[in-house]
């Protein structure tokens, strides 16, 4: 009885210790990457490659999901606003919710699904195949050569993807509100313009930049520390690490979302 109690306490303790260690690793990992901004030649070629992967190739997904998100919220708001007789607020409502909240969050979720998971798996496989050992042995700094370009690419690409998401979402809202339900075009567009201020757009941009950073940070770290954090270093380890990365970056993203919202509203 006493024995099992000590065992339980011990195992709880070790879980706590592991969590704290893991958080510490994430922190030092980020600090290492950021420190490579100074005193090194900026890895432009790799960053462009990553902008292509993170940004350009995510655009179709962003456009489609943006369009449908805009259509759905326009439909929902239309149904709500019509009961209060204020459908002229539709444009404002759609744009406001997209620009401030839904755009950044939905675009980030798309980036997690497409880029975060793939990146974590790729980095994990690189770890498994000793590619990081090889980089070390060639005296090539992995933080500088592998991590930094990906993080920078995300910081640039995710806000742009979010803006595209917003614009297509507004377009989707226009289709549902104006073309299908006959809200006047003027009301939809000027309603938007009258309500949205620069602060709203800025909030969206700040959020999406941070989300981009968080997603790549977590995904890179979970892949990079695969050999430390996973019991099974093989294919199972990669899949487990990817799952962890997706879940953690999604949760952390929403946390950051709340913090930024509460600071800026």
């Amino acid at each position, binding site marked *: 009885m006493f024995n099992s109690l000590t065992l339980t306490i011990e195992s709880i303790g070790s879980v706590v210790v592991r969590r704290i260690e893991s958080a510490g690793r994430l922190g030092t990992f980020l600090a290492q990457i950021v420190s490579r901004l100074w005193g090194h030649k900026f890895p432009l070629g790799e960053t462009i490659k990553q902008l*292509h992967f993170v*940004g350009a190739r995510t655009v179709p997904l962003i456009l489609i999901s943006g369009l449908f998100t805009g259509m759905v919220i326009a439909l929902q708001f239309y149904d709500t606003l019509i009961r209060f007789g204020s459908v002229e607020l539709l444009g404002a409502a759609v744009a406001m919710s997209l620009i401030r909240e839904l755009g950044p969050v939905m675009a980030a979720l798309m980036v997690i699904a497409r880029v975060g998971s793939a990146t974590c798996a790729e980095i994990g496989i690189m770890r498994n195949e000793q590619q990081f050992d090889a980089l070390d042995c060639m005296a090539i700094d992995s933080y500088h050569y592998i991590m930094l370009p990906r993080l920078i690419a995300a910081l640039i690409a995710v806000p742009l993807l979010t803006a595209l998401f917003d614009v297509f979402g507004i377009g989707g809202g226009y289709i549902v509100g104006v073309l299908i339900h006959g809200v006047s075009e003027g009301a939809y567009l000027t309603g*938007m313009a009258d309500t949205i201020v620069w602060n709203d757009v800025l909030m969206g941009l700040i959020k999406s930049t941070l989300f981009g950073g968080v997603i790549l940070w977590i995904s890179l770290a979970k892949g990079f520390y695969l050999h430390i954090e996973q019991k099974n270093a093989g294919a199972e380890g990669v899949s487990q690490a990817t799952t962890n990365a997706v879940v953690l970056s999604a949760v952390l993203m929403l946390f950051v979302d709340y913090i930024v919202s509460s600071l800026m509203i």
Partner: protein
Amino acid sequence: MKRMNLNFIVGLFIIAGMAAVAYLSVTIAGVSGYSKDNYQLVAKFSNSSGLKKGAFIEIAGVKVGKVTNIVLDKEAFESVATFTFDDDVALSEDTIASIRTAGILGDKFVKISPGATDEMLSSGDEIIETESSISIEELVSKYMFNSDDKS
């Protein structure tokens, strides 16, 4: 060739993204590099409850400016609002500024009723005649009180 192709696609993406950001901030949020010339007037209200920074200023239902600042005059305990008008809107000294509500539950805005004198207000001047917010609660309680009185 392959490299150029990659740069081209990335360039295209950046341009499209920037265009989207520009659309959101310029067309929708109304931020513009060149600001339309404007001038400021101040107005004091005994109560500006519900009026917010950024609220519209209308003349005859047309938007002519925005409320850019609201502070408390700490001596007179009055609300001092700063109005920013487009330059082509000229107002005379006996202009009346009143805080109104759009619809029953809508936003507060400022309604300007132009005066008739030849003396024009210039930047920094004060609109003397103002009408403060009327809250529904006050209206309702006034009505209730009056009806109580009668009975």
